């Protein structure tokens, strides 16, 4: 078997459209996926997976703008709707039907909230997309990189409670040879990482603890080696929590896409 490195030129919607091509999926990168150093790695991992499976996709590139989720939840409905309507105008101009995103907040907003303003799309969270690949038999993991590792999964609120998706990420994890353990608070009872609703961008109100520390303690209780998340905010919070507890060497923090990237040796 010969291994070689192939450079990925990420397809941009405007370019494809100019050539009269229509990709099957739009990959909504999201502001965190584009700008947050840690989550950029997740975007890159997921794009490698898309490339590996020859998925027809494109990104909006520099035309993409904030989905407006955080503005809306912070009470700025005006700004949210301006973002929503201009994004929808762009998405509709490219005749986009299917969207994938690694961000549960964008997932929720694009899927549930844009329909009010004539934005009707079939939106998949990347964990749902990966689960589809597994169900179709395309994604098989034989690599035993994580065989001796114990993995615990943190449910992002906007994938779980907000949209009832608890199974897809767990099914993807089940496809990776490894041990799994649930936290005492999981699925619909999962504790928030503390970053939603605008909290990511502000100091916490006065209290006796940070939410992400409370959640990190749930993680530590499981004795897991790896904490897996599927959301850019949860990623930041869990990373901070592990640092606070001086556990960042012992416990690794990955997005599901990164585990797949590693097991497929991409």
């Amino acid at each position, binding site marked *: 078997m010969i291994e070689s490195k192939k450079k990925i030129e990420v397809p941009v919607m405007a370019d494809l459209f100019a050539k009269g091509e229509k990709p099957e999926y739009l990959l909504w990168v999201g502001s965190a996926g584009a700008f947050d150093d840690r989550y950029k790695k997740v975007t890159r991992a997921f794009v490698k997976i898309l490339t590996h499976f020859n998925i027809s996709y494109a990104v909006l590139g520099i035309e993409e703008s904030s989905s407006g989720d955080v503005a809306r939840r912070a*009470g700025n409905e005006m700004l949210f*709707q301006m973002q929503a309507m201009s994004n929808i105008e762009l998405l509709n101009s490219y005749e986009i039907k299917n969207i994938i995103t690694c961000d549960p907040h964008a997932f929720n907003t694009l899927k549930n909230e844009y329909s009010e303003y004539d934005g009707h799309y079939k939106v998949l969270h990347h964990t749902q997309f990966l689960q589809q690949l597994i169900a179709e038999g395309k994604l098989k993991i034989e690599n035993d990189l994580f065989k001796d590792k114990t993995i615990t999964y943190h449910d992002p609120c906007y994938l779980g*409670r907000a*949209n009832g998706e608890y199974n897809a990420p767990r099914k993807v994890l089940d496809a990776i040879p490894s041990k799994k353990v649930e936290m005492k608070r999981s699925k619909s009872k999962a504790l928030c990482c503390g970053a939603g609703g605008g909290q990511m961008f502000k100091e916490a109100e006065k209290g006796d603890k940070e939410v992400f520390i409370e959640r990190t303690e749930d993680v530590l209780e499981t004795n897991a080696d790896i904490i897996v998340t599927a959301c850019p905010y949860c990623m930041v919070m869990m990373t901070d929590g592990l640092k606070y507890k001086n556990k960042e060497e012992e416990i690794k923090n990955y997005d599901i896409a990164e585990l797949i990237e590693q097991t497929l040796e991409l």
Partner: protein
Amino acid sequence: MINSIIFILLWIGAIAFFTWNVKKISRNIKLGKSIDIKGNKKERWGLVLKVAIGQSKMMGLPISGILHILVYAGFILVNIEMLEVMVDGIAGTHRALSFFGFLYPIAISAFEIFALLVVVGCLVFLVRRNILRVDRFWKPEMKWWPRLDANLILITEVVLMMSIFFMNASDTILQLRGAEHYKEVGSFFLSSFFIPILNDLPNETLILIDRTCWWLHIVGIMVFLNYIPYSKHFHVFLSFINVFYTKLEPVGKLANMPSITAEVKSMLTGEEPLIDENAEEVSFGAKDVKELNWKHLMDSYTCTECGRCTAVCPANLTGKLLSPRKVIMDIRDRLELVGKNIDKNEIDFSDEKSLFDYISAEELWACTTCNACTNVCPVNIDQVSSIIELRRYIVMEQAAALGELNAIFSNIENNGAPWQFAQDDRMLWADELYVNTKV
């Protein structure tokens, strides 16, 4: 005869007063803005069956869930006996339904068992609240009245049920002694255990006990019925309606603001906004109860202050001021006051106060919108929705968002991301990206 008249008059009075209070609550709820509740009736009735009648979400905490089902089902079943009480009370008969023969003592014995379950449930609840002091019943918003209210309900239910036992026990003794009016209808299962306590008493005293308990039970029910509109116990009626009007859309979807849609559309297209002359929406977000919608207001009257929401709220768990239960209780308390002001003055009376005199910005900003509260609420209250309406007012009407949030708003406006990065840099993540391929 005179007893029958008193009985009928008491009932008319009790029902009239109850109706008067319910109408007031209904008027208060209708002070809220109208909303278009979407979704089919079949799904809504399904929810009522599962969540309200079936108490499915109560089982999230199994101990209080099971006890609550005992009290709830027991209380309803015991009150089937009210049918006989009504007949006896109006017609002046005694145990009118005993013509059912051998079925009668079986039925009464069954009711006694249900009554016992109610007593047991209520006693355990009292212990949990007052002796074990379960944390959620001792949060700061559980001041003297909410605590007393809960205890009064539980004690009243115990008294009502105990009156059945003493009534039935004295009745049984009187039957055995062949006292006048006390025809033999058979013995009852549980109250027979009370016979030794009463057995030495003369007939006159037993008749007095029997009649006192009968009247205590019936007047107790009337008083209790009329206490409910003043109490968190109103959930026994409203929970069914509130669950029926549950938002059927995905939990994560926030309510749209059509007035803003019109404005933003005109900004984007440069056309004059179409102004709907009949639109009720005057402010962005909610400052007071009248700017919330009627479902928010119904939520507040449905709340039974169980505190399950607060017990799972990440902000509250980490010592922040926010308690979703308090937000809902504050909305109700404010609405009650607004209602009283309307009674005293006129419909447009304003006391220069608002919800912000009850709920602080510090509480509102601590919410992560994680929906843990809405997920556990046994009666499907949407706490997040009310919090967002208040946030909307702070941000859009008062222009008083936190500085950090104003910063992300201007970043989103200027460069399309909450962070201060140039929009042209949105593809930098894709630089020098390679994938391993196996040939």
